[in-house]
C-alpha cells in the first residue's frame, strides 16, 4: 500500500512546492531535499528483504480500467530497487543543489514543481509492472523533461531544444505504446508478472519482431542512441541541476531499464542481441569521438553520457550474466561520477561565469572543496584503481572478453570509448582546476556556496567507499538486480583487485590512450571542423528538414483544401459522396429489379413533375427573386407530399420554414449582388454533371432503401408505448420531447448559437466601421 503513497507523495509535493518556497525562501532547497532523502531511506529499508535468498518482491494492484486489463500495479524487485535508490539519492542532491544554483531565478518555485513532477513519474516508470502504466509514467517523464529543458523559456534556443526533445521522445513514446499493445496481445495480458512466464510464447509469436522494433525505438529515443542522440546535447540548454538529474543519471537510463525489465520476455533472440549490441557500440563510438572535440564543459559531459549509454545498451545487448552484472555496476558508477561532474561544471559556471574549458584554469585556489570532489569524480570516470569506476571498467572488459560473438570489436570499441572517458575526465575534472590562475581570462570568481559542493563531494566519496569495499553494494543491490533481469538466481561478490591479468593490462592501455587523447585534443578539434561537410547527414539536420517539410506540407494542404471558395467545398463534398455511393452501388449490384409503380396516384406524379419543373426554373431564372419564388413553389410541393404521405406535423413545419426562409431571403436579397453569370460555360457544365450524378445516386439509394429491411422498424416500438410511457398520442412530438429529449436539447442549443452568431455578425460589424 505504501508504494502508492510513495509515488503520490512526490506528485503532491510537486504541487505544494511553490507554497513551501514562499515560506522558506532560500532554504527551500534544504527543506525539500529531505523528501527524496526520506524516500531513499524508505527504499533502503527494502534492501535486507530484497537481497534475502528468496528475493521476495512487493506488489500492489489497483484496478483502473479493468475492461482493457489496465491497472495501476506496482512491483518492487531488484532492478526496480537499484533504480529507485539512484533516483531518490541523486534527486535529493539535485534539489539541494538546484535550490542554491537557481537562488535568484524568478521562477525557482516552478523548478521545484517540475523536478518533483519528474521524480514522481520516474519512480512510477521504475516501479510499475503494468505495461500501460509504464507508458503513462514514461510520457510523464518526457513531459516534465520538456518543462525542465525549456525552463528559462525566454531564450529561443531552450524552447527549441525542449520542443526537439519532446518531439523525439514523444514519437518514441508512441512507438513504445504500439509495441506494448502488440506485446500485450502476444502475452495475453499487460501485467509484467504474467508476461514473465510466457517468454517462449512471445518469442515464437509472429508479432515478435514488429513489437521488438517498436519497443526498441521507444527505448533508443529515450536513451539517446545513435540516430536519435542529438536531442541530448541540445538539451544542455536546461539549467545544470536538470542536466545532472535528467540527462545523465535517471531519465536517459529509462530506456536501459525498460530493456532490462523486458529482457526475460523479449531477450535471448538473435534479433535482440544484434540490434541492441550494434546500436550500443555505434552510440558509444559516436558519443566518444564527438566528445573529444567539444569545448563546452556540459557538452563534453553530454556526449560522454551518450557514449556511456551506448556502453550500457551494449552490455544489455550482450545479455550474459557477467554483462548484466557489469551493466548494473556501471549504471551505479556512471550515475555517481557523471552527476558529480555535472554539479562541478555547474559550480564552475555559477562562480566563474563561463563553461569554456579553454579559458578555465587554476580554479583550485578559489574552490578547494570542489576541486577535491571533481578530482575524485574524474578519477572514478577514468577508472582509476581505488574507485568504483575501476571495478566497473574491469567488469566491462571481462564481460566483453567472454562475449559470445564479435568480442574483439566490442573490446576495441570499449577501449577507445574508455580512453575518451579518461580524456574527458581530465578535461572536465582536472584541467580547469590546476595550473596558474590568470584573472584576465575569467571575471572575478566568488566563493562557492556549501550546497553547491556538498552534492558532488558526497557522491564522489560514495564512489570511493564503494570502490574500496565493493561487497557493500554487491550483495544487497547488484545480485538481486541481476537475478531479476536474467530471471535466474545469481549471487556473487565483487572485489576491487583481481590482480595483474589481461583485464588490468587493458586498463593500462586505456589510461595511456586517454592521456594521448587529452594532450592531442586541439588536433581533434581541428579534425572535427573538417567533418563539417558531413553536416547534412547529421540526424539533427534530418530532423530539422523533416520538421520544416511537415509544416510546409500542412500549409500547402490547408491552402488547397480550405481555399475559402464555398462552391469548392460543396463540390468536394458532393463528389466524395457520389464516388463512395457509386462504388458501393456498383458493388452491391445496382438497382433492385422490382421497381413497382403500383400504388402511385396520378396527381402524385403530376405534383412531382411540377416540383421538378420548379427546381429547374429556380436554376434557369435570370433574376434572384424569380429563383426564390420558384424555390417557394418547390417548398410547398414538398409540404404537399408530406400531407399526401400522412405527416401533418412535418407539413406544418415545412410551410412555416418555407415562409420564414422567404422572409429572411427578402431581408437579405436587398444586399446581395444581382445574378451576373460569374461562371462561364465549362464550369456550369461540370456543375451540371456533378449534380445530375448526385441526383441519380440519391434516387438509387432511396429505391434500394425502400425494400431493404435492415432492422425491425423502430416505429413499432414507439407505436405501442408512446402512450403508455409518455402519455402522448402524437408520436412525433413524444419522440422529440420525451424519448429523445436530449437530442432536442442539443438542437435548440444549436439554434441558439446560430442566432447569437448572426446577431454578433450583424451587430458588431455595424458598430466598428
Amino acid at each position, binding site marked *: 500500500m505504501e508504494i502508492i503513497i510513495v509515488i503520490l507523495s512526490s506528485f503532491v509535493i510537486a504541487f505544494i512546492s511553490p507554497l513551501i518556497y514562499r515560506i522558506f525562501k532560500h532554504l527551500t532547497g534544504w527543506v525539500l531535499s529531505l523528501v527524496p532523502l526520506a524516500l531513499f531511506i524508505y527504499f533502503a529499508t527494502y534492501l535486507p528483504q530484497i537481497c534475502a535468498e528468496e528475493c521476495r518482491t512487493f506488489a500492489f494492484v489497483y484496478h483502473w480500467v479493468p475492461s482493457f486489463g489496465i491497472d495501476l500495479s506496482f512491483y518492487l524487485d531488484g532492478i526496480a530497487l537499484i533504480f529507485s535508490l539512484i533516483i531518490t539519492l541523486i534527486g535529493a542532491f539535485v534539489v539541494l543543489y538546484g535550490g542554491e544554483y537557481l537562488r535568484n531565478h524568478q521562477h525557482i518555485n516552478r523548478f521545484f514543481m517540475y523536478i518533483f513532477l519528474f521524480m514522481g513519474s520516474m519512480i512510477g516508470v521504475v516501479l510499475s509492472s503494468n505495461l500501460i502504466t509504464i507508458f503513462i509514467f514514461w510520457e510523464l517523464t518526457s513531459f516534465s523533461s520538456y518543462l525542465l529543458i525549456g525552463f528559462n523559456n525566454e531564450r529561443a534556443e531552450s524552447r527549441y531544444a525542449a520542443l526537439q526533445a519532446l518531439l523525439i521522445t514523444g514519437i518514441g513514446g508512441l512507438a513504445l505504446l504500439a509495441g506494448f499493445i502488440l506485446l500485450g496481445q502476444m502475452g495475453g495480458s499487460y501485467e509484467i508478472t504474467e508476461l514473465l512466464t510466457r517468454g517462449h510464447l512471445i518469442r515464437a509469436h509472429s508479432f515478435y519482431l514488429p513489437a521488438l522494433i517498436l519497443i526498441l525505438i521507444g527505448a533508443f529515443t529515450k536513451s539517446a542512441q545513435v540516430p536519435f542522440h542529438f536531442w541530448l546535447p541540445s538539451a544542455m540548454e536546461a539549467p545544470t541541476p536538470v542536466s545532472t538529474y535528467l540527462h545523465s543519471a535517471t531519465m536517459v537510463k529509462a530506456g536501459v531499464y525498460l530493456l532490462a525489465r523486458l529482457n526475460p520476455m523479449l531477450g535471448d533472440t538473435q534479433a535482440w542481441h544484434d540490434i541492441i549490441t550494434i546500436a550500443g557500440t555505434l552510440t558509444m563510438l559516436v558519443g566518444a569521438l564527438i566528445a573529444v572535440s567539444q569545448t563546452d564543459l556540459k557538452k563534453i559531459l553530454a556526449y560522454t553520457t551518450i557514449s556511456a549509454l551506448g556502453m550500457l545498451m551494449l552490455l544489455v545487448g550482450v545479455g550474459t550474466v557477467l554483462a548484466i552484472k557489469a551493466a548494473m555496476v556501471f549504471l551505479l558508477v556512471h550515475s555517481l561520477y557523471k552527476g558529480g561532474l555535472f554539479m562541478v561544471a555547474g559550480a564552475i559556471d555559477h562562480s566563474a561565469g563561463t563553461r569554456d574549458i579553454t579559458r578555465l584554469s587554476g580554479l583550485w585556489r578559489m574552490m578547494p572543496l570542489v576541486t577535491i570532489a571533481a578530482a575524485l569524480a574524474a578519477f572514478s570516470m577514468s577508472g582509476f584503481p581505488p574507485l568504483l569506476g575501476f571495478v566497473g571498467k574491469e567488469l566491462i572488459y571481462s564481460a566483453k572478453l567472454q562475449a559470445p560473438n564479435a568480442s574483439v570489436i566490442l573490446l576495441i570499441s570499449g577501449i577507445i570509448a574508455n580512453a575518451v572517458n579518461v580524456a574527458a575526465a581530465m578535461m572536465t575534472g582536472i584541467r580547469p582546476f590546476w595550473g596558474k590562475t590568470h584573472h584576465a581570462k575569467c571575471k572575478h570568481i566568488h566563493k562557492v556556496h556549501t550546497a553547491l559542493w556538498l552534492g558532488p563531494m558526497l557522491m564522489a566519496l560514495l564512489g570511493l567507499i564503494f570502490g574500496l569495499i565493493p561487497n557493500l553494494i554487491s550483495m544487497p543491490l547488484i545480485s538481486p538486480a541481476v537475478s531479476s533481469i536474467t530471471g535466474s538466481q545469481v549471487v556473487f561478490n565483487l572485489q576491487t583487485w583481481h590482480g595483474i591479468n589481461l583485464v588490468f593490462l587493458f586498463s593500462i592501455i586505456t589510461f595511456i590512450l586517454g592521456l594521448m587523447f587529452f594532450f592531442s585534443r586541439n588536433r581533434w578539434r581541428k579534425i572535427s571542423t573538417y567533418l563539417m561537410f558531413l553536416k547534412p547527414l547529421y540526424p539533427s539536420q534530418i530532423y530539422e528538414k523533416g520538421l520544416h517539410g511537415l509544416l510546409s506540407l500542412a500549409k500547402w494542404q490547408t491552402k488547397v483544401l480550405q481555399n475559402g471558395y464555398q462552391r469548392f467545398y460543396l463540390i468536394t463534398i458532393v463528389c466524395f459522396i457520389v464516388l463512395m455511393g457509386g462504388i458501393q452501388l456498383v458493388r452491391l449490384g445496382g438497382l433492385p429489379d422490382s421497381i413497382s409503380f403500383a400504388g402511385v396516384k*396520378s*396527381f402524385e406524379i*403530376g*405534383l412531382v413533375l*411540377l416540383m421538378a419543373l420548379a427546381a429547374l426554373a429556380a436554376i434557369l431564372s435570370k433574376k434572384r427573386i424569380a429563383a426564390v419564388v420558384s424555390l417557394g413553389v418547390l417548398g410547398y410541393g414538398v*409540404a404537399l407530399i408530406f400531407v399526401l404521405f400522412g405527416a*401533418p406535423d412535418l*407539413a406544418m413545419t415545412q410551410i412555416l420554414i418555407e415562409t420564414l426562409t422567404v422572409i429572411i431571403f*427578402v431581408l437579405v436579397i*436587398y444586399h446581395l449582388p444581382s445574378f451576373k453569370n460569374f461562371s462561364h460555360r465549362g464550369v456550369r457544365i461540370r456543375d451540371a454533371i456533378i449534380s445530375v450524378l448526385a441526383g441519380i445516386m440519391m434516387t438509387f439509394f432511396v429505391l434500394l432503401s425502400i425494400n431493404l429491411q435492415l432492422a425491425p422498424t423502430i416505429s413499432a416500438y414507439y407505436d405501442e408505448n408512446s402512450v403508455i410511457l409518455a402519455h402522448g398520442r402524437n408520436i412525433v412530438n413524444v419522440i422529440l420531447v420525451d424519448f429523445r429529449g436530449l437530442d432536442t436539447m442539443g438542437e435548440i442549443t444549436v439554434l441558439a448559437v446560430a442566432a447569437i452568431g448572426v446577431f454578433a455578425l450583424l451587430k458588431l460589424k455595424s458598430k466598428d466601421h
Partner: protein
Amino acid sequence: MIIERAAYISMVIMTISLFIAFLRLVKGPSTPDRIVALDLITMLTLGMILAYCMLTGQFVYLNTTIILALITFLGTVAYARYLEKRVL
C-alpha cells in the same frame, strides 16, 4: 363512395391548375406576376390538402390548412415590402 371519386377528380383538376399557375410563374414578365402566381399556387395547395382530407376521410390535416392560410399571406406581404423597398 361518391365523395372519394369527387375528391379524386378535384385533386386532378387542382394538379392541372397547378401546372397552369406555374406556367404564369415562369412566364410572368414582372416580379409581381410571379408573386401573384405563387399566391395562387399556395391557395391551390390548400385546396389539394382539403381534397385529400375528403379523399382519405382523415381530417387531421385541417390544422395544416389553418397554418397554410395564415402564413402564406405573410410571405406575399414580405415580397411586397421587398419590392417597395427596392423602389425607394
